């Protein structure tokens, strides 16, 4: 019978290192991935991911995390895109047209985000399931009252059907965020899938010279449909031409655009003072002229002793 080899110190060290690695892997912090689905005007679809990690009891963004995003199944054919998070821990990927057929075949879809394994984090998978849906926005004018109506439609086996009880917001797109059209914060769709809000924003500054503003209806992080939105441009605003002092005479203008009052005041002061200086220089000339015409006095009228002391000094 062959004698068994005794375990060598190298093997022991390897085993120890393996155990240590396992132990160390166990200590790796968990990467938290937040996956969100967006559908804009029923056509543009994209995903947003945000990676966070818990450090010192606070969630901190993870920069540079690489994630693969898939549709329905984590396979190369279903790859939506590969993204890398920015300094805010965020990344975005548009659902490519190549997945159009796969998208059309089902009413529900699953988005899968797989984070790549790194020294700091293990591989992790996050999933998000949504039902295909869209929002349609329209406007009404009832007896001079402007209304914005929105309808939520979900896709089922029979086609697009109205969805009841969906909470949504109706507002106007502004630079810093959306402005609600009426007094309600949110609206809930009725049995026809619709909800309407009265437009109470009078004299709202328009975004262009055609008095246009952008109306929007949207769901926010809806568990079933994700983030659906629909935007529509309507001429309900009021264009105000902003007044600008650019290229006018001002204290902050270029040298050729100095205000008249400053030119006048500064010019008068300078002219006044320099006129005095020029006058005094002429007085020196005058003294010179007088001096040249006179015979020099032979003796100083000053006391000689004092004069000598001071001259020596």
């Amino acid at each position, binding site marked *: 019978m062959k004698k068994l080899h005794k375990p060598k110190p190298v093997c022991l060290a390897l085993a120890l290192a393996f155990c240590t690695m396992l132990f160390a892997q166990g200590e790796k912090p968990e990467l938290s991935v937040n996956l969100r689905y967006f559908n804009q005007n029923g056509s543009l679809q994209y995903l947003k991911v945000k990676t966070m990690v818990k450090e010192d009891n606070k969630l901190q963004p993870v920069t540079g995390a690489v994630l693969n995003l898939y549709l329905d199944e984590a396979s190369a054919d279903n790859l939506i895109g590969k993204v890398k998070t920015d300094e805010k821990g965020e990344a975005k990927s548009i659902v490519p047209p190549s997945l159009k057929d796969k998208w059309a075949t089902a009413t529900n879809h699953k988005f899968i985000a797989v984070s790549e394994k790194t020294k700091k984090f293990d591989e992790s998978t996050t999933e998000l399931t949504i039902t295909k849906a869209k929002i349609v926005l329209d406007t009404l004018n009832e007896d001079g009252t402007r209304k914005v109506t929105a309808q939520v439609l979900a896709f089922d086996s029979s086609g697009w059907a109205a969805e009841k009880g969906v909470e949504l917001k109706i507002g106007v797109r502004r630079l810093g965020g959306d402005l609600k059209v009426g007094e309600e914060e949110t609206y809930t769709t009725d049995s026809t899938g619709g909800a309407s809000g009265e437009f109470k924003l009078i004299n709202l500054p328009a975004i262009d010279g055609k008095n246009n503003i952008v109306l929007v209806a949207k769901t926010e992080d809806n568990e079933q449909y994700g983030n659906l939105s629909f935007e529509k441009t309507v001429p309900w605003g009021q264009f105000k031409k902003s007044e600008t002092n650019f290229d006018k005479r*001002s*204290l*902050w*203008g*270029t*040298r050729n655009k*100095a*205000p008249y009052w*400053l*030119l006048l005041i*500064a010019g008068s002061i*300078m002219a006044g*003072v*320099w006129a*005095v*200086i020029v*006058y*005094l*220089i002429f*007085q*020196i000339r*005058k*003294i*010179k002229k*007088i*001096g*040249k015409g*006179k*015979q*020099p*006095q032979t003796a*100083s*009228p*000053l*006391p000689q002793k*004092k*004069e*000598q*002391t*001071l*001259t*020596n*000094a």
Partner: protein
Amino acid sequence: MIWVSILLAFCLVGAFAYYRQLTRGLAVTNMGDYVSWGIYISNFVFFVAISLVGSLITAVLRLANVHWSTPLTRIAEIIAVSAIVFASIIIVVDMGRPDRFYNLFLYGRIQSPIMWDVIVITTYFFISLLLLYFPLLPDLKILLANKATQPKWLTKMYTVLGTFWRGTAQQIRISDKAINILCITIIPVAFCIHTVTSWLFATTYRPGWDSTNFGAYFISGAFLVGAGAVVVAMYVFRRYYKLEKYITEMHFEKMGRIVVMLALLYLYFNVNEYLVPAFKMKRTEDEHLTTLFTGEYAPLFWFAILVGMILPICILVFKAGRKPLPMFIAGIMVVVGAWFKRYLIVTPTLLHPFLPMHDAPATYHHYFPSWEEWAIALGSLAGALLVITFFARVFPIIPIQETITEDEKAA
């Protein structure tokens, strides 16, 4: 000779340092994105401040019909002219590309306080020069009468400058009128020069500079340092040229009173400038004030307050302190304290902007001038002293004609 050699040595080292700055750029300085105005601008403010003494001693006291100050007028005017010359020079030194100085005239904006400063400094220089020249005319005649004891070049210079002075009634009348006009003109121009200099700071929204009081604060400080400088010069010239008969203890006594009054006035403005913001302690001002009161600049700040104001007041408020030697010491204190005060006005504020830069390097938060900056600054101070020395050697430091006339009137 030793004195001139020392001053020349400082000037030469300063010139070499400036040569390095010209060839290597402002990189040889320790100025940066935070402290873009360092020791050069502190020095500029100091020179402008000290130059105001010409208007105080000559113009204000003359118009107030004060005659005891007559022997001191030339000292004051010489200090004013040399200081304003070096104020102009140090501004050019502060420019990274002095060859582009002409752009200021080609593209300068009248809306900018920097442009106002250029205009008013030039104007003040010419007025000070005229105020130095007119009272000198009768003295030049006296100097020409003693040409046998003078070097030829000096006689030639006196001849060019004043051979036409005959002392006729008409000449005296024109000269007196011109001096009176100059005395009236120089006061508003002097106020303008230092007010505009203070506006270079006050029109910039920064902790420590954002004050409506800056013009008056600067002018009061300028009169103090100018008076301090005159006291120092009085003592030195009195001793060196044996002028005890003309610069008497009475002059020290009276100048002492003026210095005390100006020091108290400047102290009052300092209390206003620091106590009021410190009482409110707005967050943006907090860091700047803390740095001054208890932080990095505290030793310098308290030195400037104590040595530049409080100690001179303590010395000069007593009659025994208004004797020549204590006055000289107090004068030195005022001048040295004033120089550091200007440094404190410029630098700590620049280190604490309202909008700090994002991820600024740690070096931006501290400033200590490089040896080139020190050499240039000291060279400019030595240069100003050299000009004063030159004037004092070439022209009578006491207005001979005026002093004797005043004495005769008094007798």
